[in-house]
């Protein structure tokens, strides 16, 4: 069925062209005694008319040549028999089709085509012994209208194609932007993690050093062992520093503030309020101290959710809920803004947050809230990591 339909779509017009040729032959035979019938023999008129119409079958291979051949043939035939071309209905329709095809061609060819159509029509009218003066105007005008329709069709198709190209390009740009956002977030997570680990190692080195200094002299093997721990720690720090240098971006601001955690959320909310978005914080469950990296990511999630509310949602109010469970922490950022709608992309930051949540084996969902607005829900297991 589908195959039939696609066959019909592809070759339907060809079938119509053949039918038109058959129709004109039949018309010539049936109405051969009509007063305006061609005067030449059917042996000439039937193949001649069929040939004129069938030129349209070549329209795909020779887009200019096929309609040109139709009109030149029609013009030539009208010299042999002035009544032949205007006589059958199908030839007129084929002429209109040819004019339409001309209109769809590129500029120069289309104009040349119009000249051929008007000239051909005028010749056919001239050679028709029954022609009236008005037909010199109206017959070419009829075909010219078909040509204009062809031009309009071509322009519409061109616009549709351009729109499609733009849509594809926009999608590609969105895709790229989203991939860049994810990559940037990964680099940021890596920087933060290295920072946190390096800090932990430096604390270890410091404490080991302090203990080593306090050990009495007679424990020199223990002192030497601790010294080795210190050296290993320092080497690790140096390597970490090299790695962090690679992860830093040109123009990254020097960080003067400690890595934030959920304990800094109040200060963040103050900033958001100052930026003009009233926001409430609800803390549920028993607050507990989180591992530094998880704590930092939890903070970043709240930050991203509120940034979205500020930037994209045109929200009038936002709400942050931090829920401490026995083995997980949930963060919900909700606003009463526009939610997700076409033209209101919630931003690529969410793709970055998704990346962050994935690292901790958590879950994240973002979308329109039932009561309107946008809601970002995340769940971070305290066990941490993908294990």
């Amino acid at each position: 069925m589908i195959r039939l339909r696609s066959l019909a779509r592809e070759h339907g017009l060809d079938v119509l062209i053949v039918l038109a040729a058959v129709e004109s032959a039949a018309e010539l035979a049936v109405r051969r005694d009509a007063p305006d019938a061609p005067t030449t023999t059917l042996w000439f008129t039937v193949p001649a008319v069929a040939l004129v119409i069938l030129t349209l079958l070549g329209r795909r291979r020779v887009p200019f040549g096929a309609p040109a051949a139709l009109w030149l043939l029609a013009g030539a035939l009208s010299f042999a028999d002035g009544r032949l071309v205007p006589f059958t209905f199908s030839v007129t329709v084929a002429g209109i089709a040819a004019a339409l095809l001309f209109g769809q061609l590129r500029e120069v060819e289309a104009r040349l085509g119009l000249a051929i159509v008007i000239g051909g029509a005028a010749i056919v009218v001239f050679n028709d012994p029954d022609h009236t003066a008005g037909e010199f105007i109206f017959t070419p005008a009829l075909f010219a209208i078909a040509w204009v329709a062809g031009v309009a069709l071509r322009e519409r198709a061109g616009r549709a194609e351009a729109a499609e190209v733009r849509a594809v390009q926009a999608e590609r740009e969105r895709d790229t932007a989203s991939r860049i956002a994810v990559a940037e977030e990964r680099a940021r997570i890596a920087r933060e993690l290295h920072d946190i680990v390096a800090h932990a190692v430096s604390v270890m080195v410091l404490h080991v050093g302090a203990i080593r200094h306090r050990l009495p002299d007679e424990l020199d093997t223990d002192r030497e062992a601790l010294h080795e721990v210190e050296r290993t720690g320092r080497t690790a720090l140096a390597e970490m520093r090299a790695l962090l240098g690679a992860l830093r971006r040109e123009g990254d601001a020097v960080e003067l503030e400690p890595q934030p955690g959920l304990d800094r959320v109040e200060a963040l909310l103050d900033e958001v309020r100052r930026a003009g978005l009233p926001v409430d914080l609800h803390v549920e469950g028993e607050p507990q101290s989180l591992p530094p990296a998880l704590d930092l990511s939890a903070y970043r999630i709240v930050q991203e959710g509120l940034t979205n509310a500020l930037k994209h949602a045109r929200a009038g109010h936002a709400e942050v809920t931090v829920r401490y469970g026995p083995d997980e922490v949930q963060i919900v950022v909700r606003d009463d803004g526009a939610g997700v709608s076409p033209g209101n992309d919630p931003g690529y930051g969410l793709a970055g947050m998704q990346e962050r949540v994935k690292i901790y084996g958590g879950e994240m969902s973002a979308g329109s809230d039932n009561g309107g607005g946008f809601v970002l829900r995340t769940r971070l297991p305290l066990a941490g990591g993908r294990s």
Partner: protein
Amino acid sequence: MTTIRVLVADDQSMIRAGFRMLLGGEQDIEVVAEAQNGLEAVEKAARFHPAVVLMDIRMPELDGLEATRRILAADPGARVLILTTFDLDEYIY
């Protein structure tokens, strides 16, 4: 024998405890005060007049660089040792 009076400014208690332990073992060094942020460091430097301030750069409220500037403005003779996990030159200017 005069002791060297030291102020330790760092937002992390583990670091402060580490320095206290490390420096406490020295006979001629005394940790006279600790500060958890830059503002506290400026205030305690003015109050205790330490010979040396061990200063972390990344601190809440007021960062170590600005705290150092204020301490030196108040007392040009103060000695401030800036500590970072990484010795990035760009911090110091």
